[in-house]
């Protein structure tokens, strides 16, 4: 942990043709951390990773690892001199080399047969498979070999480009935790790129949400989930119920009652706000009589660990359905009438009138290609 450096990215710009992909991206990845860069496809997350690896050159901005500048307007360090490992989606093992030869690929000739390769095989849990060829391994094993190959050459930073995408669902979680453990033991800084919120939330120490070529929010997984910076981001990292309300200092008045405010980093002035709460916060009562808001259940899907219920509140002016997640199998509720209430603190953001809202969203990077965000400085 002590030896691994932090990665500092400043004002990164990159476009392909006339299509800007990154627009003034800023990110600091703490030393020894495992950071997930979370974004939808086309958000620029893979481009960011390829720039850090040195495969692409940024149009503007800088990349530094520790005290070493890898990219700025004058410097471009070649990929082979960066000591940054890269594990791609399919692992890209050399098909003509055995597992041991793959791991030893980047080592000087004398060390390729040494104990280092065997130690690494052991570390990634593939002891004894050194003579196998890549096509004789499962997808998860291939990813572990790719990781060992990067660590063999002493990479202090390892980039993972959606490495778990091609794996079976039941294999994925075990490979994820293996990879995390291996990196932690090696003391390497890990940067994972993914579009899978569950993966980011469950694996990472820190999540950076990338949107439209900039970082929308950087925070620990819990913080991202509970205190997203806006409603779009809230929906992106998980299921979200979004409605409107009016704050009165300590609480917010909504159609579903007076709800407590979550203490967030933002101070919200009194007045109209957008309100967000998670499906787990919705408490359900069966039957039409009693306290709570009446609602008709549109659908109830059983997922094994619980039931996801989508319902229509019987209130005037509320159109969008409310989603609740409850334990147990409640799929029989479909079509019936229930009552619900909202527990715990909710997230609020100052709401804007519709016309202003439209204007604001047009200023957001993904919909506005003409104005690079970084120009404002």
């Amino acid at each position: 942990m002590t030896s691994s450096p932090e990665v500092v990215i400043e004002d990164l710009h990159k476009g392909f043709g006339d299509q800007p992909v990154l627009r003034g991206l800023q990110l600091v990845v703490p030393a020894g951390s495992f950071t997930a860069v979370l974004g939808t496809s086309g958000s620029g997350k893979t481009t960011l990773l390829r720039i850090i690896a040195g495969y692409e050159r940024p149009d503007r901005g800088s990349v530094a690892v520790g005290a070493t500048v890898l990219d700025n307007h004058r410097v471009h360090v070649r990929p082979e001199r960066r000591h940054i490992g890269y594990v791609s989606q399919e692992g890209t093992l050399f098909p003509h080399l055995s597992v041991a030869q793959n791991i030893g690929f980047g080592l000087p000739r004398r060390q390729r047969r040494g104990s280092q390769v065997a130690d690494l095989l052991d570390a990634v849990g593939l002891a004894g498979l050194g003579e196998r060829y890549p096509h004789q391994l499962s997808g998860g094993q291939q990813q572990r070999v790719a990781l060992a190959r990067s660590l063999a050459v002493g990479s202090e930073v390892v980039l993972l480009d959606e490495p778990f995408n091609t794996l079976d669902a039941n294999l994925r979680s075990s490979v994820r935790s293996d990879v995390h453990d291996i990196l932690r033991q090696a003391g390497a800084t890990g940067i994972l790129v993914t579009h899978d919120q569950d993966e980011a939330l469950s694996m990472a120490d820190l999540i950076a949400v990338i949107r439209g070529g900039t970082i929308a929010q950087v925070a620990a997984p819990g913080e991202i989930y509970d205190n997203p910076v806006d409603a779009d981001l809230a929906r992106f990292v998980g299921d979200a119920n979004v409605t409107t309300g009016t704050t009165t200092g300590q609480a917010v008045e909504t159609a579903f009652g007076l709800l407590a405010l979550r203490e967030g980093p933002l101070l919200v002035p009194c007045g109209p706000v957008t309100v967000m709460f998670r499906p787990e916060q919705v408490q359900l009562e069966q039957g039409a009589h009693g306290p709570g808001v009446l609602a008709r259940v549109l659908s109830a899907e059983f997922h094994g660990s619980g039931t996801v219920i989508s319902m229509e509140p019987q209130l005037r002016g509320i159109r969008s359905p409310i989603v609740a997640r409850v334990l147990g199998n409640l799929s029989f509720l479909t079509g019936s009438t229930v009552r619900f209430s909202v527990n715990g603190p909710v997230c609020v953001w100052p709401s804007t009138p519709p016309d202003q809202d439209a204007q604001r969203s047009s200023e957001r990077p993904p919909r506005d290609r003409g104005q690079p965000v970084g120009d404002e400085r």
Partner: protein
Amino acid sequence: MAAVRTALAPEAIVEGDPSGRNAPSRRRRTPWLLLVTSSVIAALLVSPVVFLVIQAQEVGFRTVWDLIWQPLTATLLWNTVSLTCTVTVLCAVIGTLTAWCVERTDLPGRRIWAVLLVVPFAIPDLVVSFGWETLTTALHGFFGAVLIMTLTLYPLVYLFVAASLRSSDPGMEEAARSLGLGRVRTFVRVTLVQSRGAILGACVVVALLVLAEYGAFEDLGFQTFTSQIFAEFNVSFNVPGACALTFVLLLLAVALLAGDVMVQGKGAVLRAGRLAQREVPRQHLGRATAPVLTALVLLAALALGVPIGMSIYWMFEGGTPAFAGGSIVAAAVHTVLYSGIAAALATLMAVPVALLAVRYRRLGVRLLERSTFLVLSLPGLVVALSFSFYSEHYLHGFAYQTSPTVVLAYVMLFFPLALVGVRASAAFAPPSLEQAAGSLGKGRLTVFTRVTLPLLAPGLATGFCLVFLAAVTELTATLILIPTGAQTLATQFWAYEENLSYGQAAPYALVMIAIVLGPAYVLARHFQRLPRRATGS
């Protein structure tokens, strides 16, 4: 071989079955229709070899041995082997380096170079040697032969390697860079290894074509087996002597193909990895740009400038161009018809063999496929002689020296080139797609015409072009088999050049070049590419 299937069906390999032994395609049975059609085609292509054996039997193997066992054979063997090796190595180096520059670097004018580098293959070697011969007398013997064969054949290696670079996963090279390898070491340890199969495959074709070459060497006064075979036949009408020498040539070809079968068995693993999906960032040539461009311009000047320039020079040298308008048109029509029909037939015949070879990679199939390559090393003369023999003995002289025989000779001589073109596309038409179409309720014929053929289309186009380009310049078989009174551009050019009537020969050279430019362009643009719709996103 298992890795090939991995590339096509990665999900077939699961944990608990690390050997991939349960991959579904291994136990598929060979369909008899493909097998029978392919066997008939292979038998046709091997028939000249059978002719050689019959000849040897008639004069007695003892006599054949005496004919082979003479000092001249040693000279010929040395000349042929040293020439073939030198040309093949040079072609491999030039073809691989140029392909890498065009496909992997930011070389200026890549799209133009991609065509210019291929066109020399289309320039008839007769015309290339004519150009150099009449430019300088310094060029003679071994070095002349090496220069001319290299300049006309390196595009084959270029085409194969460029295609392999396009389809190989650039992620491998990037991975190597991340692991601390510089550009040169990445090229040697990853790029070259990835392209090894393509380079070797192209080298085999180049070597076979050098073995069979005649016209260029005759001009240069360089003696190889093929030129000596021609001399035996032409000067002394010594058919047994010609056949005896051909046997040695055949042995060389068999050795080459056997080696290839053994190496390719291992090389198949290298095709694993998925196709490139993103635009690969290209290597910056930087300060190397100027030297690289100079080298490419020089190559184009040597390969294209000299033959075309000298043809134009000779055409106007005698004052007014000496046009024989009518006969040149007739010769051009004959050339285009013969070559076009032969190319179409050869391409069609290549379809079953290619499908069989790609889908059922067992030893018997591989031997069957490779046996069709033998004919590439046979001089056209020998194939023509076998025709006359079969016609005389079994058909009472029927069909000898008619247009269909010329076409058939072209089909046989250049079938392997069609196969090379079609086979590449056959790899992109996996049986799983046909099965999918079948499961949608389509009959076999519909599936073939609506799924298989469209996927094969680029391969059919390039196979056609390769055969066409080779057939346009075919000389020795044409001289024997062509109907009395008819001429092709190549035979007429040859006749004038033999008489040293360069001014009259030159227009024929230029017409030949004009005819081959179109197919050469198609070849450059489509060789071993995916069907266009499959790549569009």
